């Protein structure tokens, strides 16, 4: 059934839903590499079109700038003692056994270069201090292994100093961007945002069409006159969903619609910014900032009072940066930034949904919850989604404790890896999650993240776990008595 070379994937069975650390297999996933970016996409998002001639000097200069401006990077370059606590924590190591996928080994790729150019010991005695030149070979390793990291931060939970490999990966990618080295998938997606307002490249007319189609669909099937407003000036709420919710995960989109309809709150989406997911986060600071700015621009243009971030993991990581990246949000109603799960929980606590939920509607489901990395480990959203699930269904089970909450595994495709040419690493990285789901035997895997919703069905199919993947709000919508 596999459509790709399975060499980097370790197939040993899990025990009690947990994977044992595999034997090391050097270079197992060295050939799994994202396609390089195209010149036209690079140009559209402000990167050099191809690798610049004096790339080594440029890269070192850039790294120096980052060290001056990022405390985390500076501290994490120095204080790792290589204790090995993180070595068996990364899903890509568990799935491939490639030692370069151990978080510490990944970070060492950058540290070696840091020591060579920024420490006295490394300048004088590179061999004695584990320092290395930034040469062609090192750049290739960077490109391979910093794009086999999903920036999920699981390793940081186990590091005695909280060393966050995501921060190191982001710095390495930023350096690579500055010399014109990036992947096709991520650059393409960011270019699409500037062109159409969303990651999927859906033009405004198609977005409007689809919202009308959803209205007809819900009317036909459930006899409900629910609106999916687009670009409505003066609405109370601007909903910024991941664009996939309007095409692939329509149940989630219908969920938003039903919820706002029931609460009687006016809301809208925007065709200028109908994407919460921010791929700038996987690329460089400039694009992170520029993509995120569109949210505030759209909100101010429409004159809304509140912005609500939809069910998207990385979107929330970028979302919580909004005041920092794009200036004060004091002209909006607090709290901000505001996540849809927080909004629902606030509504539940206010009693706005009291008597309007019929949990039994979901009785055919045995639900389990997959914490997306960013809401759990960067966005403090551990309880809220669970509260929504408990409020909407009777049968909820948790996966083994080592695989949920802040110890959650990445779905395997975050951080800009949701692209077909790296399918082996995606399936290998998804294995720990698949095994945990299999262990609890759930038939509905709820998760508030568009990347997870795209990746997990493929993972579950590959690892032969029969489970439906869907949003958290889908469950709530199904239980709402309209």
């Amino acid at each position, binding site marked *: 059934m596999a459509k790709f070379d399975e060499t980097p994937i370790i197939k040993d069975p899990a025990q009690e839903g947990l994977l044992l650390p595999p034997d090391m297999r050097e270079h197992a996933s060295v050939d799994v590499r994202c396609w390089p970016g195209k010149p036209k996409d690079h140009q559209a998002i402000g990167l050099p079109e191809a690798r610049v001639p004096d790339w080594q000097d440029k890269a070192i200069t850039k790294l120096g700038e980052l060290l001056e*401006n*990022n405390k985390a990077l500076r501290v994490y370059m120095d204080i*790792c003692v290589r204790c090995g606590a993180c070595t068996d924590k990364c899903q890509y190591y568990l799935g491939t056994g490639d030692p370069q996928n151990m978080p510490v080994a990944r970070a060492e790729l950058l540290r070696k270069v840091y020591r060579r150019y920024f420490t006295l010991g490394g300048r004088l005695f590179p061999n004695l201090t*584990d320092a290395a030149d930034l040469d062609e070979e090192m750049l290739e390793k960077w490109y391979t292994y910093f794009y086999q990291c999903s920036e999920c931060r699981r390793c940081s939970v186990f590091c005695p100093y909280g060393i966050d490999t995501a921060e190191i990966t982001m710095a390495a990618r930023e350096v690579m961007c500055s010399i014109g080295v990036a992947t096709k998938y991520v650059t393409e997606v960011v270019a699409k945002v500037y062109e159409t307002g969303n990651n999927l490249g859906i033009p405004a007319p198609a977005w409007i069409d689809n919202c009308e189609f959803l209205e007809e669909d819900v009317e036909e099937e459930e006899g409900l006159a629910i609106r999916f407003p687009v670009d409505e000036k003066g609405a109370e709420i601007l909903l910024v969903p991941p664009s996939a919710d309007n095409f692939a995960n329509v149940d989630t989109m219908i969920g938003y619609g039903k919820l706002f309809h029931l609460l009687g709150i006016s809301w809208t989406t925007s065709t200028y910014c109908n994407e919460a997911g921010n791929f700038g986060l996987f690329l460089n*600071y400039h694009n992170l900032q520029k993509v995120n700015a569109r949210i505030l621009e759209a909100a101010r243009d429409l004159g809304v009072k509140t912005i609500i971030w939809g069910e998207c993991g990385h979107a929330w990581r970028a979302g*919580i940066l909004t*005041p920092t990246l794009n200036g004060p949000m*004091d002209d909006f109603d607090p709290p901000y930034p505001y996540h849809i799960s927080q909004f629902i929980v606030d509504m539940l606590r206010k009693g706005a949904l009291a008597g309007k939920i019929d949990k039994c509607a979901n009785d055919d489901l045995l639900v389990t919850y997959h914490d997306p990395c960013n809401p759990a*480990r960067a966005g403090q959203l551990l309880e809220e989604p669970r509260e929504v699930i408990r409020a909407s269904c009777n049968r909820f089970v948790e996966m083994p404790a080592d695989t949920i909450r802040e110890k959650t595994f990445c779905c395997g495709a975050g951080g800009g890896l949701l692209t077909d040419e790296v399918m082996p690493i995606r399936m290998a990285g998804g294995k720990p999650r698949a095994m945990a789901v299999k262990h609890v035997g759930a038939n509905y895997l709820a998760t508030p993240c568009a990347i997870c919703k795209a990746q997990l069905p493929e993972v579950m199919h590959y690892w032969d776990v029969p489970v439906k993947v869907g949003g958290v709000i889908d469950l709530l919508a199904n239980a709402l008595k309209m």
Partner: protein
Amino acid sequence: MDTSTALWLLASYLIIGLSYFAALALVIGLIWRLWGYLRTPMPWPEVTTPAPETEGGSIARIIGDVVLFPNLFKADKLLWAGAWIFHIALWAILFRHLRYFTYPVPQTVLYMETVALFFGYLFGLAALYLFWRRLALPRTLYISGLPDFFALGLLAAIAGSGLLVSYWAHAYLVDVKAFMLGLLTLSPVPPPFHPLFLIHFLLVLVLMIYFPFSKLLHAGGIFFSPSRNQPYEIQKPGKRYVNQGNYPIQY
């Protein structure tokens, strides 16, 4: 003056000079490195959640990290035990060493005498375990480099020579103390002529010089780790971090 006396005099000057150099390297090195961490801004919220939402909470969290190593406990119980015992024993031994630097010696330091040997062995055992672990697990062997073995070896050698000098080939305590107090009061006297003590002492000087410029700086660096020391206060109105870029909002 015969040759050996002259040589010893020369060596004494060198050792005294090196002592002051090592002290300066440690203090200035530490200030320079930690100041670097302190002045570098953190451009965005970096904290690993679930996290405390107040400054006080985050201070409590970082103190907890420093004292109990909770993350290591989550990661690997055996490693946690080895590392925690290693550090506790190190502190106990350092505390006991106050008897060489203070006059009169505080009573609490003298109480340590009864358990000093115990902590010495504990430290040695923990160091051996950590050394063994580095070599025995393929994963840790893969990531271990020369600096890792050097740091552990240096600490083990200091501990070994220290144990020997305290419990086997005693150095004359009065001479040792005269030497240490002389250094501290800036009126140095020649060190006691005791090869084992001198080895122990010189290794400590190497450690002091090496400390601020190596991974041993994790001792100070942990306080500056943004993923642990930031409170989660994203929704606090007006809360912003340092902005690195300059992309303007257009609407």
